[in-house]
């Protein structure tokens, strides 16, 4: 641990710390543009130049000393870039010297030279690193003043020529726009793509003063592209969903959690005048770091359009707006004398713990078998042990069965980190290191540490030492065979995956000191396979990362919403139905006598079948807690965008129960939270770094097996996001992927548009042939419903189309 002096302060920092981090750790500031947390330091912007000296050792191995006997400080002949200089024992750093200030002012001047300074029309204005740094470090009166007409004015730049002109509206995708004039060439975006998701899509083109950012891949691949809009220090890369929606200081900024998947990524919801305008990643060093997926970032458009603002009641076959009192009267009438076991209580996948608790308690009190949550899997994810995401970095080998990039995109980024062999960074007083010298550009990926299997080639496949594609439905066979080999038995053959490959995986698995197993929805839908993973983890010792398709799954199961008898959400049976947050499948609605749905948006199924619709909050607007895939308790805070009268699940349930003449388990959020805490002793008041809730559960799995032939592939995008035309345009029509042989057998032509209908909905899909799939495989994106399942389907050629 080297000790060094920053200006007047002595500090001690971990070995390998950059001078830049040492400066911040000591409580001093230094400007920087090219360095960014989690990216490799490159020393390009030259903003962080400081004066550095160090003692030297003489021939005798001892420090060379001055007259006073102290180690003599030898100053480096030039100013050093703090981001790329390693802090060493006895170093002395001066960030306040005149020559440092002059260099900083000079560098600001160079940065502003060709910058258009169109701050008044720039979405980054007010939150721009260039603005901030120019004000702090650019003005240096001593150097940049001019006297005109007897008046002394201060200059930012003495550049008097025409500025460089370049493309100002270069659309990189439906979501990201590039302004090449504003770019200050920090290279953060270029490094981000190569280093974080591992896709080299952006680079500098041309050189010298003509250097600009460009890509061969327009549009940028959707998935992880949005993070560049967060890290671009200026307004060169901007979020198109928020273009010109507000100045940065006008946004209401709400720190909450993304509930589109079970990862629990921290986000900022930026809203204004009751609309969500923008989602940004919020730093959480132990979970999502500073990254989120494109779906989490750009998929918010649905939440602010066409909101339900008042109750709708079906009168003469039409849903018409009514007062809450009328809705209440209607419920009281229809629910009088209702039997508890007839009632069905269904909750959406993104519900909070408190909502889950209220629903579970109510179901218990009513003694009804009809309850559950959307996207519950056959095997309860709560039965599997949970590991912290950071623990993945300590593993030596990871076996992935599933598609992390789509199922839990942030876990995919963690896997990329794991492939680079990076361990968690030290924490400084200022937090995450800004210039982590352990990171480099183009770090080799350790492919031999990773094995991936899925029913189709995933993004992760090309990074894996062993990568396999098996036919949908064979996941049980795959896990079984691996299990057999690990236990020294003869494996049954797995279609599509040679035994030698499995043996290689087993060999590496056993050779690794710490191993991780990552499993997705498909495994959770195959109870035997999931159980085998649980047993494996116990017997051989492995970190398990399970990716349930329902964001709140772990918590909802643990608070009592696990229904071992039926699927609740998907199985018809209840006569009197309350569903909160999403619309259950058609057949469930059809089987009920009374259908009350609490929704934020009216969808076609609700329009056709609901008797009463109550306005509901989206997850962005709820207060509450959730338990993520690692068992961490995270807090949701409400963005001020819910329409007046929109209910959360607790209120909707209370409304319903009052109609039945029963006392609700909780009348409102606060009560639900207290009860939940009393009952489960949740660590709700602890900071998120330490608040874990991992009750040891042995819930009974639901028996059964999928019989259908169409595989629903997990997607980070959710069906509701498609309400936004921008998202639709970016994603294009869903792709029905088929092995060429299968397509031929089914009479599907590549490129043809067909209508596919499953129990989850109807899509117009485009046929795509994929020889990497197993023969017989048909794959359709799930878009949040039934991911990882094999379902029955009907194919039709739409009128006017051709197959």
């Amino acid at each position, binding site marked *: 641990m080297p000790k060094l002096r920053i200006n007047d302060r002595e500090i001690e920092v971990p070995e390998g710390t950059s001078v830049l981090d040492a400066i911040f750790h000591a409580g001093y500031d230094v400007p920087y543009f090219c360095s960014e947390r989690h990216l490799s*330091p*490159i*020393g*390009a*912007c*030259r*903003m962080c*130049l400081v004066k550095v000296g160090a003692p030297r050792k003489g021939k005798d191995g001892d420090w060379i000393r001055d007259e006073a006997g102290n180690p003599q400080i030898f100053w480096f*002949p*030039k*100013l050093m*870039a703090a981001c*790329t200089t390693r802090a060493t024992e006895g170093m002395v750093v001066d960030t306040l010297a005149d020559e440092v200030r*002059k*260099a900083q002012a*000079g*560098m600001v*001047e*160079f*940065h502003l*030279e*060709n910058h258009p300074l169109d701050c008044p029309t720039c979405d980054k204005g007010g939150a721009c690193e260039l603005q901030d740094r120019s004000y702090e470090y650019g003005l240096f009166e001593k*150097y940049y003043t001019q006297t005109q007409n007897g008046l002394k004015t201060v200059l930012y730049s*003495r*550049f008097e*020529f025409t500025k*460089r002109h370049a493309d100002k509206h270069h659309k990189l995708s439906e979501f990201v726009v590039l302004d090449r004039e504003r770019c*200050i*060439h920090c*290279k953060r975006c270029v490094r981000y793509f190569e280093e974080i998701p591992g896709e080299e899509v952006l*680079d*500098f083109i*041309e*050189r*010298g*003063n*003509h*250097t600009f950012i460009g890509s061969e891949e327009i549009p940028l691949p959707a998935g992880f592209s949005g993070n560049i809009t967060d890290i671009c220090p200026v307004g060169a890369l901007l979020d198109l969903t928020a273009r010109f929606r507000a100045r940065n200081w006008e946004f209401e900024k709400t720190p909450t959690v993304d509930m589109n998947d079970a990862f629990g990524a921290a986000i900022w919801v930026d809203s204004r005048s009751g609309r969500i305008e923008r989602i940004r990643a919020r730093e959480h060093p132990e979970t999502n770091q500073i990254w989120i997926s494109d779906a989490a970032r750009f998929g918010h458009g649905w939440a602010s359009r066409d909101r339900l603002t008042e109750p709708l009641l079906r009168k003469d076959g039409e849903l018409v707006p009514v007062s809450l009192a009328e809705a209440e009267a209607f419920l009281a009438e229809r629910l009088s004398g209702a039997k508890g076991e007839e009632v069905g209580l269904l909750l959406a996948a993104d519900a909070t713990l408190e909502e889950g608790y209220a629903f579970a308690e109510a179901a218990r009190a009513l003694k009804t078998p009809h309850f559950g949550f959307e996207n519950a899997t056959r095997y309860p994810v709560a039965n599997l042990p949970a590991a912290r995401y950071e623990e993945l970095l300590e593993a030596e080998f990871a076996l992935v069965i599933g598609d992390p990039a789509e199922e839990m995109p942030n876990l995919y980024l963690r896997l990329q980190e794991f492939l680079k062999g990076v361990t968690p960074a030290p924490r400084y007083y200022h937090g995450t290191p800004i210039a982590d010298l352990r990171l*480099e*550009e*183009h770090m*080799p990926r350790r492919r031999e540490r990773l094995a991936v299997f899925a029913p189709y080639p995933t993004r992760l496949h090309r990074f894996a030492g062993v990568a396999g594609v098996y036919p949908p439905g064979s996941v049980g066979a795959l896990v079984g065979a691996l299990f057999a080999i690990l236990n020294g038995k003869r494996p049954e053959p797995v279609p599509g995956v040679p035994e030698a490959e499995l043996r290689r995986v087993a060999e590496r698995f056993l050779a690794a000191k710490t191993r991780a197993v990552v499993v997705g929805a498909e495994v959770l839908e195959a109870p035997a396979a999931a159980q085998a993973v649980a047993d494996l983890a116990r017997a051989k010792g492995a970190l398990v990362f399970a990716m349930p398709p329902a964001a709140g799954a772990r918590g909802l199961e643990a608070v009592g919403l696990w229904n071992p008898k039926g699927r609740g959400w998907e199985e018809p049976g209840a006569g009197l139905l309350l569903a909160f947050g999403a619309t259950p499948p058609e057949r469930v609605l059809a089987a009920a006598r009374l259908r009350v749905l609490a929704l934020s948006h009216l969808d076609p199924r609700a329009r056709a079948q609901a008797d009463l619709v109550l306005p509901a909050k989206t997850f962005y607007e709820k207060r509450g807690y959730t338990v993520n895939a690692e068992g961490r308790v995270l807090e949701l805070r409400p963005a001020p965008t819910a329409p007046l009268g929109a209910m959360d699940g607790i209120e909707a349930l209370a409304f319903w129960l009052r109609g039945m003449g029963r006392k609700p388990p909780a009348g409102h959020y606060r009560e639900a939270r207290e009860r939940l805490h009393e009952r489960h002793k949740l660590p709700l008041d602890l900071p998120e770094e330490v608040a874990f809730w991992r009750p040891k559960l042995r819930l009974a799995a639901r028996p059964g097996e999928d019989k259908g032939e169409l595989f629903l592939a997990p997607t980070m995008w959710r069906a509701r996001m498609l309400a936004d035309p921008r998202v639709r345009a970016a994603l294009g029509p869903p792709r029905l992927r088929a092995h060429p042989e299968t397509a031929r057998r089914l009479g599907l032509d590549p490129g043809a548009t067909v209508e596919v209908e499953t129990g989850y909905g109807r899509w117009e899909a485009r046929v795509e042939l994929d020889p990497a799939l197993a023969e017989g495989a048909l794959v359709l994106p799930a878009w949040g419903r039934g991911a990882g399942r094999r379902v029955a389907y009907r194919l039709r050629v739409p009128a006017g189309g051709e197959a």
Partner: protein
Amino acid sequence: MSEGFIVSGHDPRFERTLYAHVGRPDAHTLDYYLGHGGYEAARKALASMTPDEVIEEVKRSGLRGRGGAGFPTGLKWSFMPKDDGQQHYIIMNADESEPGSFKDRYILEDDPHQAIEGMILAGYAIRATKGYIYIRGEYRRAYDRLVAAIEEAYARGYLGKNLFGSGFDFDLYVHRGAGAYICGEETALMNSLEGLRANPRLKPPFPAQKGLFGKPTTINNVETIASVVHIVARGSDWFAQMGYDKSKGMKLYQVSGPAVRPGVYELPMGTTFRELIYDWAGGVREPIKALIPGGSSTPMLPFNDDTLDTPMDYEHLAEKGSMLGTGGVILIPERACVVDVIWNLVRFYGHESCGKCTPCREGVAGWLVKLLGQIERGRGKPGDLELIEDLLDNIEGKSFCPLADAAVWPVRGALRHFRHEFERHIEEGRCPLEKKGFWG
């Protein structure tokens, strides 16, 4: 003249080696090379010297890098790890793109086997079994000759497995640059070789720790590596008799501009400008006002007796506030406008800036070019020179790689010795020199 250091081409003890065969018919063929003692140094070293002994010999000779920076070659080689089990690489930097430098070219064109033999020796010394020659893309003939020579060498066992029965394997590859000066910077060159954009890389890690493809690598200039052949063949003492204290050996000096016989001259280190220009290059064709001593990045010196009597080596030129660089002497005639010359040079560096770091991309490639152009076109304003000097302060020593410095130094040299020309441009509002021909 036959005692002490050899510091003149007239010294009877001096004998040409590097360029001894340049210009001779068929000098590029293996038969010619073998007929003139070719591959004997390699045979000797591989048979009777350990790699460390080769490094020691080079260290003792005092050879310093001829690529411009003058780093001691033996010392550089000794930084390479030993017995680390990794693949090592040796790279020959033949990107020669500095204006005024054209010495490497003729070694490759007319004596490619000399370069190959040097690579074998260097590879052996640093325990690299693979070598790359990164050659300037425009050097088409040199490339063709080199490729043909390598093929010949492979065919006759001078490259490949088990050279001279010593058990040492050596493979050599040639890679053509695509026309960027920055590719001559050693780490940018490695990026380029790896198929990446030629931006300089961070140091540390230095190439000897983590170079090409992340493996220990040494990179040297063509002339440096060719010199090693003769050091091994004739001994370090022979080499060290040439030149003054810290600048040893023979050097390829180049003369361009209005000399009677511009060209490359192999002379002992420490030869004076006067000898080079008047005795070897045949004098000047017209009045000269300044000379650039070592390639375009070195500050110019006024063309006077003091300069002419300066020995051309690292130390003496540093004393004069300039540098030996690549030894490429450029003569600037009286009728040329210094402002124009400097604007031209800075434009070159601006054009070649890789764009990675701010002071070079914005300072050199943008602002400095514009300011100098403004002065040359007669639109300079009072205060422009002070502004230029302040910008030079903000650029020099603050960029990521030395390219920006290379643009600063000539401007500094010109302002030091020819400030009056700049001032006249600003005062008169025009370029005072009548323009004609290439120089004007």
